[in-house]
């Protein structure tokens, strides 16, 4: 359909296939899926009118963009409106399932606070403008005649992959810049770095389903870590049958995963690595496990962390440590994970490294940690975000190194701690363009605001950073026509920006849809045979029906490099005796879902609070402060103060105060604005030395009662069952006796 004008090498590059000869195994596309509503088919969104039958729903496959995991979705569409989202059963990642944020994708799309018209800053204030004016201004400031080039131009995005990433890179290249800041508060960068360094692959496959025991240092794999819906299905298998797996979770405050643990251990923040080394010590010295796989330096380090030292540093009783070690030895293969609360410290890398060392000692490599290989088309692979990019961005902006920044899919001004001083630095950048759906904190500071189509109105391709077995390209296709004619597709904008820089070179590509079809067509063996010129339309349609394109997996064995650094555990500051934990939760996530009414009214998984912020503290702490549930306390760090009502429970370390991320928006629409507090703001400076990731879990705080009662709105009036049999519990031993066959 699209005629391509430019030369073949450039073409392949801009299509995301250069340098690879990946052929998709066979052209044997799966047959049509029938949906649950009787006989209708899952159809691609090609000529929607033909499928609008009054009163009959049809299903379109697409991709969930509510978090970076990119699960497959299917939208039920009736009379041209999308009414309900379900998981796409064809997706190897989420096999038909969705989380609550995924379900609520509908309310991002139909949100009453969407941006509908471009805005341009005039005399200090954002005012409505036409698309022509907005684009003309962008051309003036960043087009070929602007003189802008090199690192003075940058993109700041959230996690990005697929062909959007290819076009974004092409745009950067056209400006001679390589400044792409990829920002994600909830991320797995330190884990990826450790895997890369120790195993030679950054995203090995984690087989929770094959493990007989999982020891997780704060990896909230059922809630916010990596690919939670994929892991939830694995977890269900892990828990069933004769060999029901055992889950031990060690973390400072209870995550959703912790709430499901057989044994939940309250761990002093920052001592995750110490606990891992202490366990290794017990395994080697008490349980006599063979440690020949470990280098001498690692053994030397392990020997320094005997039971009494480990107990002293972590606060975990020695007999408990020994028991966990014994379980790990007996229940092989096991799996040791380390998540955000382990990684978010000055010595985060070392802690995660120690967890990986434990995996190696326990023989889990190639058992429950499997090599996954690289994505066959590296240009499409996920560029996963982190917080080191946020501080690098703040540095660049603060040093006056940036003249123009485009940003999309990220809200840095909301997420940046006060100590980065980002708002002032950001304002000092001369030209800032927001590609946004909402007036969030960052968008409010932009010079040009371009209203974007919602995820359910747009085309795209996505490659998950964590692939669940099969490697797949996930297809995002519109589930309906745009609600607002004034919004535009992000992909179309990327094409327009590229054409702006290289006039004429993208002429053959009518729109992003046309580009995607050509781009997918240029992947060998997908839409064309060896010498065919024409695109195989039915193959294309089937990809869109499935919402997925399976890619060949070129599995590469692990390499190993077992270096080990000593733990870096910082001493407490007596003026700030508590640790502040900014809890991530799969509800408001990093704050991006605070504008969704369903999620504001969805009770928090642990505290059951709705519509507000709260601070979790232990009953011992509450007694010290003489506060009761709902009383307001101040949480003070050297970088700021929060006032927030308390929720008191025992799923938290006595020295920890946990405040969930997500609330505290100054902007972001009627549901988010002026609600609760943002704990990210008052975090102290500090970052992991190896990766530069911010030490989100490393802040110290002082707590004080205000003497005021606050408002804590919760679902349910009781925390206990009062001895009734509501949730009954039996022991695993009883379960094993009776359910060997399931």
């Amino acid at each position, binding site marked *: 359909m699209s005629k391509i004008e430019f030369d073949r090498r450039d073409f392949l590059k801009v299509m995301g296939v250069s340098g690879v000869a990946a052929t998709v195994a066979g052209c044997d596309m799966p047959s049509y899926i029938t949906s649950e509503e009787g006989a209708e088919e899952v159809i691609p969104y090609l000529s929607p009118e033909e499928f609008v039958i009054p009163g009959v729903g049809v299903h379109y496959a697409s991709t969930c963009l509510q978090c970076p995991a990119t699960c497959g979705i299917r939208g039920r569409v009736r009379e041209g409106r999308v009414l309900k989202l379900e998981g796409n059963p064809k997706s190897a990642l989420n096999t038909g399932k969705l989380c609550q944020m995924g379900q609520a994708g509908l309310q991002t799309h139909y949100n009453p606070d969407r941006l509908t018209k471009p805005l341009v800053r005039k005399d200090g204030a954002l005012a409505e403008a036409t698309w022509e004016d907005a684009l003309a201004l962008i051309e003036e400031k960043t087009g070929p005649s602007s003189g802008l080039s090199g690192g003075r131009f940058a993109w700041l995005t959230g996690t990005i992959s697929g062909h959007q990433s290819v076009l974004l890179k092409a745009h950067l290249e056209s400006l001679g810049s390589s400044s792409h800041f990829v920002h994600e508060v909830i991320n797995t960068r330190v884990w990826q770095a450790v895997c890369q360094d120790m195993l030679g692959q950054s995203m090995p496959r984690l087989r929770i389903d094959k493990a007989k025991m999982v020891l997780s240092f704060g990896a909230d794999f059922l*809630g916010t870590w990596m690919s939670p819906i994929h892991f939830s299905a694995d977890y269900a298998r892990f828990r069933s049958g004769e060999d029901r797996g055992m889950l031990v979770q060690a973390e400072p405050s209870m995550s959703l995963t912790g709430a499901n643990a057989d044994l939940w251990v309250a761990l002093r923040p920052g001592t995750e690595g110490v606990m891992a080394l202490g366990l290794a010590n017990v395994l080697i010295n008490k349980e006599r496990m063979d440690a020949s796989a470990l280098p001498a330096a690692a053994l030397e380090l392990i020997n320094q962390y005997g039971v009494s030292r480990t107990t002293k540093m972590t606060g975990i009783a020695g007999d408990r440590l020994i028991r966990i070690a014994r379980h790990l030895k007996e229940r092989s293969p096991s799996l040791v994970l380390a998540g955000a609360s382990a990684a978010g410290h000055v010595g985060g890398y070392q802690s995660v490294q120690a967890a990986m060392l434990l995996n190696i000692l326990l023989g889990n490599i190639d058992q429950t940690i499997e090599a996954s290989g690289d994505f066959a088309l590296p240009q499409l692979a996920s560029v996963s975000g982190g917080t080191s990019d946020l501080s690098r961005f703040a540095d660049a902006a603060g040093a006056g190194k940036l003249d123009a920044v485009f940003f999309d899919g990220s809200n840095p001004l909301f997420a940046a701690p006060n100590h980065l001083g980002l708002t002032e630095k950001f304002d000092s950048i001369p030209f800032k363009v927001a590609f946004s759906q909402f007036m969030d904190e960052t968008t409010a500071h932009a010079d040009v605001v371009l209203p974007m189509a919602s995820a359910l109105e747009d085309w795209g391709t996505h490659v998950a950073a964590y692939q669940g077995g099969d490697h797949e390209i996930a297809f995002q296709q519109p589930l309906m026509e745009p609600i607002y004619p004034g919004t535009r597709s992000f992909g179309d904008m990327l094409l327009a920006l590229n054409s702006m820089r290289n006039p004429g070179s993208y002429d053959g590509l009518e729109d992003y849809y046309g580009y995607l079809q050509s781009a997918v067509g240029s992947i060998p063996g997908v839409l064309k045979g060896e010498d065919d010129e024409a695109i195989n339309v039915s193959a294309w349609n089937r990809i869109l029906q499935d919402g997925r394109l399976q890619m060949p997996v070129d599995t590469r064995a692990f390499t190993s490099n077992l270096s080990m650094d000593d733990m870096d555990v910082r001493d407490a500051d007596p003026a700030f005796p508590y640790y502040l934990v900014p809890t991530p939760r799969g509800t408001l996530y990093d704050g991006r879902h605070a504008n969704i009414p369903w999620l504001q009214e969805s009770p928090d*998984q642990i505290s059951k609070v709705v519509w507000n912020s709260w601070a979790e503290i232990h009953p011992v702490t509450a007694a010290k402060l003489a506060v009761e549930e709902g009383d307001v306390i101040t949480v003070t760090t050297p970088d700021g103060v929060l006032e927030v009502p308390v929720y008191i429970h025992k799923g938290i370390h006595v020295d920890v105060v946990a405040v969930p991320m997500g609330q505290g928006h100054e902007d972001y629409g009627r549901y988010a604005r002026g609600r609760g507090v943002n704990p990210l703001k008052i975090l102290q400076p500090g970052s992991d030395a190896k990766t530069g990731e911010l030490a989100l879990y490393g802040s110290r705080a002082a707590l004080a009662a205000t003497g005021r009662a606050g408002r804590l709105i919760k679902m349910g009036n009781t925390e206990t069952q009062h001895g009734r049999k*509501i949730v009954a519990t039996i*022991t695993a031993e009883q379960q094993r006796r009776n359910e060997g066959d399931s």
Partner: protein
Amino acid sequence: MSLVRNFIEDWSRYRRSIDEGGFHEYEHMWGMVIDLDKCTGCNACSVACYAENNLAVVGEDKFENGQGMHWMRIERYWDEPNIGNERVRDTQEHGASFMPMMCQQCNSATCEPVCPVSAAYHTPDGLNAQIYNRCVGSRYCANNCPYRLRYFNFFSYYEDSWPSPLDMQLNPDITVRDKGVMEKCTFCVQRIRSTKNAAKMEDRQVVDGEVQTACQQTCPTSAIVFGDLLDHESDVHKLWHKHQTRLGTTKQKKDNPELRGYRLYEQLNTEPSVTYLERVRDV
């Protein structure tokens, strides 16, 4: 002669246990199993139900007054009466206890007989149904529900719940309820309906797995199983059977008392259609 035969036939029909549909000519007996060991308390089911069933978001003030409309709510308890309260020492060692709670579709529902206008009634599918346009808002049913899962429209919530264009998402297969009406989980009756209609058009029976409730469909761990208890090949029937729970009793007689199935508050003789499987902890 035929009189006697009629009598015998009627009598045996009358005596037929509720497992077999009882003396009603039930077409289906929709039932559920929720495995509390698989349920992670994630809330996906609850939000899916909001999306499917046009549940109003009431806002913090009304939520504070107990007016949240969560047909499916995930209760969270900290204590563990079965493995001993004393185990909850200074830390929450075994995590939390989560309870997905929605209408238990009782077969001798305490809410039904108290309705002065019979707005709450039992369908030939074994569902506890609510006829919205018959409901006069006496709230007797909610008062009588031992599970507290009937939700009353004290206000016209729709006026504030779906500011445009949020209203475009409303499911046209079911209504938006107005002030004065009682509502609750329907086992996604609109999904049951459309599947039954489709089967009827094709002149066949509904097959197991064809009807999925919204909560079941999204549940990331597949903790929820739904189906027809009268269909002996259905997963839900097999699970009831395996865990030895049955309808028609206030106390399950089990060969093996360790089997995990139980019905919530069945001692009240409500005949719930939901079997929960006990949570498991490696202690």
